[in-house]
């Protein structure tokens, strides 16, 4: 146990999670507040024979990842707001070509260069809709280092299972704060390895023909099956097609595999949700302050609860709906102008009971900030 106990930054917890998951290749570009991830991996990866490259920009980083993933590697990049904007182009390609990859965004303040060294959670909707065209996406987050580790591992598992990019939306506070991390033993967390095709050499392999369960077994570039990969709408051979049935079928497949399958397993944590009169919904570093308020209120005998989201996309409508059913008030605690609050309002019955407790000045939202909103809702005395 002692050897597995570390005191680390969140960015380092992410690195440990990626290495645990079997990361083979990292491509990235320096950007605050994610840079430690690249620095640590530049040192750690070659020690295991894996590879690190610093590309000329984030566009190139995501492209290199996709190429590497096609050779059979588990791949990851890490960035922040402006870099995440550049990554959107390649992210769309990875969605279309169904390439497993993990993209970490340690959020800082935006828009534009914004406030590089301070915390915001303003990229939540960018993660959902940043790349053009209709599509589905998986985005996970975490509020503490043990969960940063676990969600990073989970991101690789989801990426491999559904052949999809997965976005890890951390934030500056989580990335730079230090706290304890217990590294799990090898094998303690189940890993999903890439599903490889069983089609033999010389037999026609269809890289984009889903099995009955919706999964697409892959064949590595350099292997016995030679096929085409494209960002255009494509048929089961991966060859460009503008046939309306092919276009319709592919887009539905890309949506369904995430919205209907991956959505079945949303990750979340809950604290006193069963009987909460006032339920907080929060995520990332903001959830730490929300939890603090909940614990304090509970000690006073007041029925406060917290639903901490870890899967942000696909948005866990059903869970939110179910957990908020009995609450009189729902307070979304986040550090933006209400990006998840919007989704919560769409998910719950009687959305007029949803309130936003936020902070958008680059400072971590405090329990006091949240208390002020509670006082507004409940009136004096709170």
């Amino acid at each position, binding site marked *: 146990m002692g050897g597995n106990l570390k005191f680390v930054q969140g960015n380092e917890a992410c690195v440990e999670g990626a290495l645990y998951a079997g990361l083979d290749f990292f491509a990235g570009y320096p950007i605050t507040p994610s840079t430690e991830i690249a620095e640590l991996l530049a040192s750690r990866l070659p020690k295991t024979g894996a590879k690190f490259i610093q590309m000329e920009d984030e566009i*190139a980083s995501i492209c290199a990842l996709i190429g590497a993933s096609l050779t059979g590697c588990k791949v990851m990049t890490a960035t922040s707001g402006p870099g995440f904007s550049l990554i959107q182009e390649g992210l769309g390609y990875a969605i279309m070509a169904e390439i497993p990859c993990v993209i970490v965004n340690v959020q800082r303040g935006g828009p534009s260069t914004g406030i590089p060294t301070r915390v915001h959670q303003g990229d939540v909707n960018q993660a959902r809709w940043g790349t053009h065209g209709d599509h589905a996406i998986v985005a996970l987050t975490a509020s503490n280092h043990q969960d940063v580790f676990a969600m990073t591992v989970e991101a690789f598992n989801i990426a491999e299972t559904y052949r999809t990019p997965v976005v890890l939306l951390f934030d500056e506070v989580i990335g730079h704060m230090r706290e304890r991390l217990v590294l799990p033993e090898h094998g303690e967390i189940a890993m999903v390895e890439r599903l490889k095709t069983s089609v033999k050499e010389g037999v026609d392999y269809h890289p984009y023909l889903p099995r009955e369960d919706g999964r697409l077994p892959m064949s590595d*570039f350099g292997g016995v099956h030679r096929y085409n990969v494209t960002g255009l709408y494509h048929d089961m051979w991966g060859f460009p097609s503008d046939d309306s049935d092919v276009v319709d079928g592919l887009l539905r497949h890309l949506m369904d595999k995430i919205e209907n399958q991956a959505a079945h397993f949303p990750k979340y944590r809950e604290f006193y949700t069963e009987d909460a009169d006032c339920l907080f919904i929060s995520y990332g570093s903001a959830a730490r302050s929300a939890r603090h308020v909940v614990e304090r209120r509970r000690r006073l005998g007041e029925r406060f609860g917290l639903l901490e989201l870890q899967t942000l996309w696909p948005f866990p409508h059903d869970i939110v709906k179910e957990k908020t059913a009995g609450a009189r008030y729902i307070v979304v605690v986040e550090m933006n102008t209400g990006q998840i609050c919007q989704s919560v309002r769409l998910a719950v019955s009687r959305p007029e009971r949803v309130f936003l407790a936020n902070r958008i000045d680059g400072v971590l939202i405090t329990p006091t900030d949240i208390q002020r909103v509670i006082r507004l809702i409940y009136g004096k005395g709170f």
Partner: protein
Amino acid sequence: MPVKDYIRERFFPHIWCSGCGHGTVLNVLIRVIERLGLNKSDIVIVSGIGCSSRIAGYLDFHTMHTLHGRALAFATGIKLNRPELNVIVPMGDGDALAIGGNHFIHAARRNIDITAIVMNNRIYGMTGGQYSPLSGYGIFASTAPYSSVDQSFDVAELAAAAGATFVARSTTYHVNEAAQMIQKAILHKGFSVVEIMSQCPTYFGRKNRQGDAVDMLKYMRDTTTPIGSGAKGQNPELIERGVFVNKELPEYCSAYDEVIRHAMEGR
């Protein structure tokens, strides 16, 4: 092997206009690969976007049709993780040098063992004849109806300055020479660039009154000359063909293997 064994007949006919030079490059590339006796499963073709980039899908290798300008970045991820594969990146001039210009210079700088073939027809064909960074001053295009005031640059000079360790140029008129250049480039260990001047009679030729494909081929014959020829001395306007750079420098994948060795030894 016959040429048809290297192509995916299922995906023909190709999309190129009649008289386009890109089919010639496809033919040359296949013949070089046959001559070198390369195994089809050891070749990866990575292309970007544009007329030239469709070359990838027609070839029966591992093929990847990527994003506009980004092919070399994708190829870098492939090559670094599977250095034993031959990675060839056919690109158009706009693809390689406008939107992809940054990736181009950094792939050259790293000296990663990839062969970039720049099929330079000095125009954006797929979108209908807009001027490219290689069109040059005084050229007519759909976005330069009064003629272009943009200067062009020389691909070979750019590649050499950026650090490519093999740089050559030929044309679709000089098919045997083009084949030699591509063959040398594939065999070269390091980042190699071959510019193949190619004709686009549909847009460049028509807008600039250069005649049909045959006229354009003759024009390339008459306006180019081998490096160091006497003709260049008499007419400095002539564009030189041949090998401009051929040198040895540490190749990126091999150099990174050294990094791994040091890291594993704890240094």
